[in-house]
């Protein structure tokens, strides 16, 4: 039983067991991750890359092994993996390091309307700072990417970067990033894939995708918070200026200058999140142990089951009604504000998120004030979906009478 690998569900069982439908915000932690982090602190802890004593060597090896595990998880080379605080920092690193050294006033960055704030605000900051132009690829009414609009936007003059999400955290729809990347490549546009939402749901191969950058956060994969990844193509990373300055990112420092270290350390200033990296590697191994085939099968069944529930509850509207999606559902319930629904259902043991889900422009695009989001993962069950719809029916009845 996969669910038993997650201690939080053991502690919260009984009459009000935890129905955790907030996986798009963060995945719960398997014991394997908790144990890896605990064991590191109990048995192997020291700072890395600095001292010559054996314990420090052990810690350094654990950290660098973690990089290798994460690299092979997305089919990258380990020197192409930069550990960051999360997807947000990874995108900011690209914006500041690549963006500020490659973009000029009037250059264009293309994103889509499906982005979350982490893939909007760093570009708006560059708009303020150097006067770049930000273009949004339109979505169709079912929430999928409008490929005609993509062609139009990517064909505009001076498009230098396309930064798009593989799966929107609101819509759950799987975007055709491979097609978008080939289109961008044919126009010599640098590409960034935001895998924040896709990373825990299906395998990602950066070599096959042929993207230049890819980012994700560890915690959405079952790893700890405070660790994330920036994948960058080696020949691009080599040319980029450092992002943050400090210890560990330098080859040498003189009183009036410095020489940066080689990648990936050039981008990892200061003591990095060592336990975070070790925990993330444990999460990658855990996912591999469960297997993508099994994960896909479970999540597909959950998605189908959820769609069945929607059909029999006509007062619930789904934002982005497209079947090619992960089990992420942003809902609008007649007569019930999403906040009231999330609070009410929370008292029934169901964890959901209500609001904009860090994607305010997307809600504006569809002219919706807020939504209630149920996001499921491979440890959820069909009986939890039944319970959810039963409680929603009671809620709707109370608010409608």
């Amino acid at each position, binding site marked *: 039983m996969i669910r038993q690998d997650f201690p939080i569900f053991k502690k919260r069982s009984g009459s009000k067991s935890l129905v955790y439908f907030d996986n798009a915000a963060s995945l719960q932690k398997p014991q394997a991750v908790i144990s890896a982090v605990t064991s590191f602190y109990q048995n192997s802890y020291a700072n890395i890359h600095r001292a010559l004593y054996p314990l420090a060597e052990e810690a350094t090896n654990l950290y660098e092994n973690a990089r290798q595990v994460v690299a092979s998880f997305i089919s990258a080379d380990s020197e192409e993996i930069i550990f960051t605080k999360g997807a947000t920092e990874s995108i900011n690193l690209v914006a500041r390091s690549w963006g500020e050294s490659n973009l000029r006033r009037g250059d264009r960055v293309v994103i889509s309307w499906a982005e979350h704030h982490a893939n909007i605000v760093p570009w708006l900051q560059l708009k303020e700072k150097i006067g770049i132009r930000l273009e949004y690829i339109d979505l169709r009414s079912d929430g999928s990417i409008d490929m005609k609009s993509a062609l139009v936007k990517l064909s505009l003059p001076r498009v230098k970067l396309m930064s798009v999400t593989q799966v929107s955290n609101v819509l759950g729809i799987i975007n055709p990033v491979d097609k978008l990347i080939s289109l961008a490549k044919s126009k010599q546009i640098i590409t960034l894939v935001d895998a924040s939402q896709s990373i825990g749901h299906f395998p990602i191969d950066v070599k096959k995708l042929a993207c230049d950058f890819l980012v994700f956060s560890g915690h959405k994969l079952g790893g700890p918070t405070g660790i994330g990844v920036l994948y960058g193509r080696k020949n691009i990373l080599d040319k980029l200026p450092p992002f943050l300055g400090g210890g560990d990112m330098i080859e040498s420092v003189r009183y009036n200058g410095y020489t940066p270290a080689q990648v990936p350390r050039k981008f990892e200033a200061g003591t990095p999140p060592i336990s975070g990296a070790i925990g993330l590697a444990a999460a990658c191994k855990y996912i591999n142990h469960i297997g993508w085939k099994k994960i896909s099968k479970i999540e597909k069944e959950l998605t189908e089951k959820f769609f069945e529930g929607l059909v029999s509850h006509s007062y619930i509207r789904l934002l982005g009604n497209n079947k090619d999606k992960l089990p992420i559902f942003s809902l609008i319930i007649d007569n019930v*504000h*999403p*906040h*009231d629904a999330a*609070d*009410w259902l929370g008292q029934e043991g169901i964890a959901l998120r*209500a*609001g*904009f889900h860090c994607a*305010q422009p997307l*809600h504006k695009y569809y002219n919706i*004030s*807020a939504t209630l989001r149920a996001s499921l993962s491979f440890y959820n069950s069909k009986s939890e979906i039944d319970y959810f719809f039963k409680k929603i029916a009671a809620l709707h009845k*109370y*608010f409608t009478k």
Partner: protein
Amino acid sequence: MDIWAANIMDHYRHPRNTGQIKSPDFKADGANTSCGDLISVSLSLENERISKIRFISQGCAISQAAMSILSDALIGHSINEVGAYGLDFVEKNIGIKVSDRRQNCALLGLRTIQKAISNKI
């Protein structure tokens, strides 16, 4: 009493004092950006005391009901008194304790009224 008590639901379904005052002494718009709740209030004064409140809003049951209840409860209060009110005052008037996660909802109306007053001053 819980937050779905009858009086809350009654004010949510049938909010009192909706609309706007044509030439108000104070007015302001407020929003909870994290959840999309919006509110627009206008107030009239007589002898430095609130004599009339009208509001237009969209939002959850708590923010709507709290605003509706306050639109009656604040009549006759001085602007200095209103400026000093906080969560305690709202809870006393709506008749329930508000959980931490719903405080922004419960306070949206009061904060917007306070904003209207301070805009003027």
